[in-house]
């Protein structure tokens, strides 16, 4: 730990961090544009200038130093409010704004724009600039990203991101001096799998995500912390929604999982949750068509069917998109109520390899909770083997919720052969076409509960939107089915199931509801991951969330 003085007050901060991070640790803002803790600091925006007194020196240095390129040292004295510091920041802002179009009314970044924030805080209220503004053209730099070049402050965060994190270097600077522009190399669009992040790290409205463009003002958005269901990595995300619609997903900092980033598949893969064709009501087959009905009818019908076919002849297939808590309820349903040994776990099959970037890996397993499923249900058959359980079964309860799941002819034939098929899913699919009873479930944005990542890290999803229409949480559905069959599980909330898992599944010991904090719980670690507010965590909390 290093003792430094900022604006006359002494603080103790972590060793070896930059002054910007140290200030964030103690809750002080040092404005900056080009600095990002995950990237090297070029010190080119000149916004974070501070007055520095080095240990053992009589007074402040003649030159202002950059807070992003200066590492803290014991006894360092930093002034964040000296008149010349304020003057330097006002000057920097004036220079940044002379060519800026001031099109905040139509700019996506408005409301979460550092240029706006810092201008209010440090800038002048008028411009002295009367010369011609530069108006470089708007460009489509990649499949997901547009560049409003006029708004760009040439901080080069995006260029460094593509050099250091993805190693693909699509973005670069062209021209020189006042004509500097970010651009892609001809014929090489910004199409790597992490391209969406450049819109996040852009401190102004220059790089925008075309998916989000003009869809909402950020201040209308409500936000909840969630976990990406796109693969087994378990990237921490923020789900932002408005008017019962998911508007965008942004990564949330986690040092041990995804840093500040997430991949485009996860970022733009939420649209199925907004699909107008989502199942909204429970349905029972009447001849050719599925007819909407009430939940009680459905529970009774399922209980009756299982009793009729005999519990041991019913296969229950959970999905790797179910949360730990849903899986626990499903497991108990199979064991205690239905009494079947035919339990399997269906998922997106693993067909590809990990996509490896220098500082980010997208995992090949495109299911968020395979690890949780295998830990909670026991070592059950998966994928092909799970579907094979239908061969000896007369009926099946299949939990879907897997977007874009493709079923082979063989599986479809097995489904056709069943006397009764109960499907819990969120979208019409080949499964629901063949179902006798359809129960609408929840998408990941409507779930409460936890996913277990491939690294055995249990992380919590929070509910953004209520279940759509008359949909039910899967765990509620399961409890009600069990009740119809005469079994009370007695769960009243998700947290109770979380605690139940912690006490009854050995691998999950310690991972109770209260132990799973914002950084998750690593199974087998024996203690909750610490809620740290140092270094990058402090930075992320201050400038990122």
């Amino acid at each position, binding site marked *: 730990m290093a003792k430094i003085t900022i604006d006359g007050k002494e603080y103790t901060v972590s060793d070896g961090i930059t002054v910007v991070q140290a200030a964030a640790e103690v809750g002080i803002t040092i404005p900056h544009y080009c600095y990002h803790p995950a990237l090297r600091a070029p*010190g080119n925006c000149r916004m974070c200038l501070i007055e520095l007194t080095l240990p053992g020196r009589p007074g402040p240095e003649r030159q*202002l130093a*950059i807070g992003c390129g200066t590492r803290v040292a014991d006894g360092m004295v930093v002034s964040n409010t000296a008149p010349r510091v304020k003057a330097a920041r006002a000057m*920097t802002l*004036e220079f*940044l704004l002379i060519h800026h179009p001031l099109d905040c009314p139509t700019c996506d970044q408005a409301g979460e724009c550092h240029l706006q924030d810092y201008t209010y805080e440090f800038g002048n209220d008028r411009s002295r600039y009367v010369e011609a503004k530069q108006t470089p053209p708007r460009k489509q730099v990649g499949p997901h990203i547009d560049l409003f070049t006029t708004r760009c402050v040439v901080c080069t965060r995006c260029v460094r991101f593509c050099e250091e994190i993805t190693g693909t270097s699509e973005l670069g600077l062209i*021209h020189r001096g*006042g004509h500097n522009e970010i651009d892609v190399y001809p014929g090489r669009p910004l199409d790597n799998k992490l391209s969406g992040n450049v819109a996040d790290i852009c401190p102004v409205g220059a790089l925008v995500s075309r998916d989000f463009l003009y869809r909402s003002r950020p201040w209308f958005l409500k936000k909840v912390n969630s976990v990406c269901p796109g693969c087994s990595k378990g990237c921490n995300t923020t789900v932002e929604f408005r008017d019962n619609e998911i508007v965008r997903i942004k990564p949330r900092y986690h040092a041990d999982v995804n840093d500040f980033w997430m991949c485009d598949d996860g970022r733009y893969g939420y649209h199925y949750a907004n699909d107008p064709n989502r199942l909204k009501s429970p349905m029972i087959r009447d001849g050719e068509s599925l007819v909407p009905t009430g939940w009680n009818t459905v529970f009774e019908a399922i209980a009756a069917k299982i009793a009729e076919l005999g519990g041991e002849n019913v296969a229950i297939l959970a999905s790797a998109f179910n949360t730990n808590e849903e899986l626990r309820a499903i497991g108990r349903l199979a064991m205690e109520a239905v009494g079947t040994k035919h339990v399997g776990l269906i998922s997106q099959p693993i067909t590809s390899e990990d996509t490896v970037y220098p500082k980010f890996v997208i995992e090949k397993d495109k299911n968020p909770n395979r690890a949780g499923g295998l830990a909670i249900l026991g070592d059950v058959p998966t994928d092909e083997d799970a579907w094979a359980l239908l061969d000896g079964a007369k009926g099946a309860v299949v939990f879907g919720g897997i977007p874009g799941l493709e079923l082979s002819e063989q599986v479809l034939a097995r489904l056709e052969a069943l006397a009764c098929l109960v499907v819990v899913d969120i979208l019409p699919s080949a499964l629901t076409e063949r179902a006798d009873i359809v129960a609408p479930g929840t998408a990941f944005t409507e779930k409460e509960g936890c996913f277990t990542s491939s690294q055995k890290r249990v992380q919590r999803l929070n509910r953004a939107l209520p279940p759509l229409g008359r949909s039910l949480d899967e765990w509620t559905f399961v409890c009600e089915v069990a009740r119809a069959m005469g079994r009370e599980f007695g769960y009243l909330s998700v947290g109770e199931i979380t605690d139940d898992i912690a006490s009854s599944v050995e691998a999950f010991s310690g991972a109770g509801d209260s132990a799973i904090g914002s950084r998750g719980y690593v199974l087998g670690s024996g203690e909750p991951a610490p809620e740290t507010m140092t270094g990058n965590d402090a930075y992320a909390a201050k400038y990122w969330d």
Partner: protein
Amino acid sequence: MAEAKERRILYENLDVPGIHTLDVYRKHGGYASLEKVFAIPPDDHITLVKDSGLRGRGGAGFSTGMKWTLMNRQIEPRYLCCNADESEPGTFSNRYILQNKPHMLIEGIIACCWALGIHTAYVYCRGEFTLAKKRLDAAILEAYAAGILGESVAGSGFALDVYTHSGAGAYICGEETGLIESLEGKRGQPRNKPPFPAVQGLFMKPTCVQNVETLSNLPFIVNNGLDWYKGMGSVYTDVPRTAGDPVNTGTKLYCVSGHVEKPGVYEVELGITAQDLIDMASGVRGGNRVKAVIPGGSSAPVLTPYELDCPLDFTSLGLAKSMLGSGGIIVMDETVCTVSALLNLMEFYAHESCGQCTPCRSGTPWVRDITKRIEAGHAKPGDIEQLIDVANQIANVDTFTWNTICVFGIAVSWPAVSFARKFRPEFEAHILNGECTVLPLEEAITPPEQNYAYPRPQVTVVQQPKWH
């Protein structure tokens, strides 16, 4: 007034036919330092250069020996980058060294590398140097063939490789870290300092960056000894600590250009006055009077006729709130419009800014645009203050601070502020008359009592150049 004389050391025999070849160079005493240099232990060699008072000839005037002591000599490999990217407007002395005496540079490189234990040297040539680069390359090949470079330099067992690299014509690649970036194959954009190149430079290894003229001085220091070298130039006492090193030894290649009868490079001991140097160049053309003199390449603040008694060395020009810089003396006579002259410079700087940091990227074109409006007569009262203010925001002339990554900011700001302040009446006349107006000499210049850099603080002279 005695006839001023040159003191040719580096430029000795410069015009001997074929001096750029090894044989002719040797015939005129070349490579004599190789006999002596390897007998001096590296540490003693560094001390020798430090004691000689040699200061960097590239512009900043930093003590060369001091720079060498700051080198991290624990890390291998270390590199030498010879800065031959002579881009400062008004400067053209290195080109003649490369064209006519490339072997002298190689000799200097060997001396520097021996002192610092460097086995790889790069010469970063300005992109426009075609003949110079050709001759330097040929000289390096000759030196390899003669065993002067390679596995064992002149049989000493000391290995040294020299490579040349051509820039692509960017002024900013003459800044040492911009040069390093460019040499690494990136955009030529200066790095933040610290870390200084002496700690982390080329390929993140300790690197010494030296100007051609600085390196060319080294063989003569080795050959002729400390006292001989220290006997040239000017030395002062009573210099305020803020003005830095009072020692200005050796000679300087002054590139005199502009409205003089005989422009060219004059090698004189450091400290000749501006007036004497103009006289040496046979005076101003057509018997006109001097209106402005830029003393150190276009980045240096301009001098008015009142300041022509200023000795052209690092210390005195520093006290005059200007700088010797690269020694490019640009003389303008009374027919010159100082606003146009400034506009010319600002066009250059706006074009050459690398654009990575905000103040310079936005500020330099802004200063250019304001100057352009004044020159065209479209400006309004208050624009001169704005010009000075914007320039001071890039780099503050009065406090000698800059908000930019590199000193390009100062290089833009100094000429802009000094022109606007020292020739304020002419700037005002442009605004008042709504067109380009060249005032008579006496009226065009800000009166000395209002000149911010006048009078100079008086210091005691211990040693004066002997040029008469």
